[in-house]
């Protein structure tokens, strides 16, 4: 009965802290609608797993039975907080370089460099304890009208999406 109650409490905590996408920042660039060019939409996404140690500590405390263990967890969390000082957007990640190749990815997506209508999005997918810290770039590659017709017939005009995650294949 007691363990059932604990599991129920844990479920409530999980549901209460669970949420989905959180937008931090977005920016828009200029839009060139030159009639000589067709606009092919594309989307680049890189992500990294963030770990919320504060939340992990709360979960660990909720799961631990003894008062001593709870006290130890508090102590560890206190030390961790001392090592994680500074401004933060979303949940901290272990890698700072996961978005560094986005400029190369942009040129891979549109080698001609004729890119317009860029939207930069910094968002987060929040789950209990972990999160997906996402950097997303949306834009249009300007293709000369004749080559655009060829590529449209090949790809059927669907937006091209490229996603990359440093930690896991699928963005969480």
């Amino acid at each position, binding site marked *: 009965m007691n363990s059932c109650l604990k599991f129920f409490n844990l479920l409530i905590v999980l549901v209460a802290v669970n949420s989905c996408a959180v937008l931090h920042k977005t920016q828009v660039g200029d839009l060139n609608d030159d009639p000589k060019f067709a606009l092919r939409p594309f989307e680049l996404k890189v992500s990294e797993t963030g770990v919320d140690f504060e939340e992990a500590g709360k979960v660990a405390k909720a799961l631990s039975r003894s008062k*001593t263990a709870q006290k130890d967890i508090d102590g560890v969390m206190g030390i*961790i907080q001392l090592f994680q000082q*500074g*401004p*933060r957007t979303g949940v901290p990640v272990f890698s700072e370089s996961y978005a560094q190749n*986005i400029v190369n990815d942009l040129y891979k997506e549109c080698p001609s460099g004729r890119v317009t209508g860029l939207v930069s999005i910094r968002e987060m997918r929040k789950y209990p304890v972990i999160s997906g810290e996402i950097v997303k770039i949306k834009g249009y590659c*300007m293709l000369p009208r004749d080559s655009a017709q060829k590529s449209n017939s090949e790809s059927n005009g669907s937006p091209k999406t490229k996603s990359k995650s440093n930690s896991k294949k699928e963005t969480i």
Partner: protein
Amino acid sequence: MSVKKIFPLIVTLFLGASCMHSIHQVHVSDFDPYGSFESGKIVKAKTEQFVIMGFVTESNYVDKAYRDLQAKCKDGRIQGITTQYITSLGFFSWTNKILMQGLCLS
């Protein structure tokens, strides 16, 4: 405290105390005037600001990154500049970082 109990705490402490980072912003500038990837070269500039207990050590690090980027593409044009603002968290201190990258067309 038994080893069984202390081990997970040490692992958590080790992970949590290791350097963690937060990317605040990634901005991509406009690409006009357009140039292909082959016609230029990628230039980068990175500067940092160390902050200890709220006291800053370098207050013009963004200007410095901007000037460094300009210096790396003399007599040329830089298109598609991506600017990343990152903070590396630390013990009673943190480091703000600016990374600017772009394609230098000469």
